[in-house]
């Protein structure tokens, strides 16, 4: 059941990849970072993060590894793989192309 996250479809995956590009992070960290970076402008239902992560895992764009959090609890962290890095570039290119196209359409119409 896909939920409306207030995000254009597919954007969540791109955001995750983008955040992980700066270094490995656990799920909660990713959620926090999305909130911070978007200055709460993008409302991501946090629960939908995890299914998205599962999908990225399956695609091989991220890798899960056991780490210890800053509070001393063991937790799963996600790291971008080379394939993920490539995918991020592809998605970024796609997105900006689409954004440009939409902007063009909005201005010229």
């Amino acid at each position, binding site marked *: 059941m896909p939920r409306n996250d207030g995000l254009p479809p597919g954007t969540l995956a791109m955001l995750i990849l983008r955040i992980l590009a700066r270094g490995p992070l656990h799920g909660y960290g990713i959620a926090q970072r999305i909130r911070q970076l978007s200055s709460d402008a993008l409302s991501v239902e946090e*629960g939908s993060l995890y299914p998205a992560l599962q999908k990225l895992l399956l695609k091989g764009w991220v890798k899960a590894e056991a780490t210890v959090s800053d509070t001393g609890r063991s937790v799963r962290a996600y790291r971008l793989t080379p394939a993920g890095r490539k995918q991020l570039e592809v998605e970024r290119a796609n997105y900006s192309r689409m954004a440009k196209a939409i902007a063009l359409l909005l201005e010229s119409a």
Partner: protein
Amino acid sequence: MDLRDVKLRARALLAPRQAERDLRDELAFHVDREARKLIDEGMAPATARARAHARFGSVPLVADECRDQRGTAFVDDALRDLRCAVRSFAHAPLASATVVATIAIGLGVVAVLFTFLNTFLFRTDRVPDVEQFYAVERLQPGTDGQSSLTRADFESLRRDTSVFTDAYAAVSGIDLRVDGRAMAVTLVTASFFDLVRVRPSMGRALTAADDAPNGGNPVIVLSDKGWHRRFDRDPDVIGRTVLVGGVPFTVVGVMPEGFRGLVVGAPDFWAPLAQLGAFRPNQRGRESSAVVEIAGRLKPGVSGDSARAQLRAWSANAPASTAERRAAAAATIDVLPHRGTVPRPMEAVMLFAPLFIAFGLILLIGCANVANLLLARGVARQREIGIRLSIGASRGRIVRQLMTESLLLALVAAAGGYVVSRLALTGAVVWVVGMMPADIWDVSLNVPAADWRVALFLVAAAVASTALFALLPALQATRIDPVRTLRGELVRDARPGRARNALIGVQVFASALLLIGASIFLRSGMASSQYDQGFRTADTVMIELVNEPTRTAMLQAIAADAAITQYAAVRPGMLDTLPGLATIGQGKTPLRCKFVSGDYFGVMGVPMLRGRTFTPAERDGAPVVIVSESTARALWPNGNAIGETFRLEPDRPSEGQPEDQPAFSSHLVTVIGVSRDVTGSRFTGNKPGVFMPTSLDAPDTAAMVRIAGDPDLARRTLIEHFIKIDPNLGRIVTMRTVARLEKVFLTIAFSIAVALGALALLLTVSGLFSVLSYLVAQRTKEIGLRMALGAPSRAVTRLVLAQTARPVLYGLVAGTVLAAALATVLLSTPFGAFISPIVHVADPVAYLASVVIIVAACVAAAALPATRAVRLDPMRALREE
């Protein structure tokens, strides 16, 4: 799907717990961290936790979505279904056990049959290209399919015709004692081993030099069975000698395990046909006129028909005394596919098909039982299913869950069926071996092994029966209206009722079929066990005297034996007779004849009704006869037979006479006595009508002796004594054994039929009982209401009984009609002709009895639930609802 993908999914599949734990931990960590952050910001802990949860959404839902992403949902579902199934069985252990046991029994009996079929069909030792083998037979007119081709014919056929690439001749079924042990030998020409194309596992097979006529070598080739029995699988057996009729034979080879030639039962060894004289002393010196079986591989391109035509031409040119005889010889020659007793796969399937149907009916009844049970449970679960349907579960999903339950049951039942089949097989083999009289053969029957094919068959049958018994209830249970169910209106749909009635009908139909079969067999078996052979069997023993040079010494030993109180001469064997013709005036009457000495009637306890028996002076060729009671009545309806004369002729040409059967010449005889009827074999009904005099001094006669004390013990001592005189002594058989042996095969067939019938009835009754009990329980409210309104208990009973009357009736009619139809078909087959003297297929009493039994059983099955219904306290019944 790349490798990582596979690894992830595999991990989720193989370590579902680990994956689940990781997921749970991760989600919990998230919520915890969020809550802590809110607490750090100054929120109260409880509020913080609630807030964190609200932000996150439903943890289980997220977990579910994660699982969906992993793509293992299908397996997860299946595992959940499985856990659910196990739990639901744990809730109803008795019902589940009943289901498993019922299906296990059904699967077990079918698996028994399949195990047998398996050993037939997939035997690895079959002779390659066995379908190329054709047998040549020249039937003797007036005999029951006895071939009359001799070894000389074989040589001529091999030399002068070109239908076979090669052929062999054999004399099989010779039982004799080797070093004191009963062994079976088949004598073959050396070409036999080349033709079957099976190499010995040790040593060599027979060579042409071994089988040189009027010479050859006294050598034998052991079968695996013979190697085991006589030499205990001694690896140094090659070159050892055994004594056959006092002649040393050398072991030159051992055939591989499982090689049985072209028959199911292998002989203990094979020997060159040229050595026939050593095995049958009375044929010594005339080996080339010995009657042989001939078979060979047809040349490529030669059909059975063209081979027949060629051989008829050959037979017509064979030297024979008159043109008429030559024509007769040509007319009766035949070429038939020869596969010994090894059936081809298709034939094996055909042979087993009726049995599979019979055994399968048990499984069918079991399935119907279980389907009914599940149907009942499905109705009880309507509420649960209704709720699940209404919250969005798909019907397919629920059907799948119900099917998972049934499949699990079926697999447990398959394991149970395996156990049942092994127990039944072992039991049956022990039982059969125990029944086989050990003094005729050393019977060794192995329990057929169950291999992977049996396992595969069991699983396939289990799955197929699951489909049979579970699909209908599963579909039925989900075909409901969720809204009405939720409102608490249990749907008392007409459809489950219809399905249930159909199942009851099927059960009654199947058990009627089986029960009628069983009754027919049982009644025939009872009739046949009361069969009076007309002579003493309790304390008489037949001694074959096969070696003429030692006849005198043997007779002296018999006379000297203290255990033998009386003895007489008889030929041919105990239950055999010779065909003959009585010519009185113009008419010829076929008769069955037997040569006996005057003491025969005393030894065998056959009373003389009139006249006298033979005197010692009346021996071979004396023109006197004794006729049986019924023969006397047939030939002289108004006279007393004594003193009457008639001409007695053999009913077959004297040439082509098998050497081991006595002949008699046409002569005029006078009746001197009338004996009571001797009935002979129950299979062939070989009643001797005329007794002719002979004596123990005549060649080929056997001795019938009366024993004081235990005949089996006497038999063993006799063998010990006689072996010292003649190591090649013939069979010594107690008449008890002969009588028993005839009964053994009947008993086996009857027992199987009766067991199947009883099982069918039992399963049907238990099925009906559980269905009716369930129905009464379900209709408690209605019944209570009726009774509260003053319905008499009779009406309630009728209500319960009426529930099943119609399907029972339909099932009975269908079963009876089909049984009658099958009987008609069976009677028209050769097998039907064989069993018709024993099994009376058209037996109205059997039909009637079966119908009565089934009706009675159904009433009995309904009685208890009906009683329970009548005893219902109307008020309580109404309150409970």
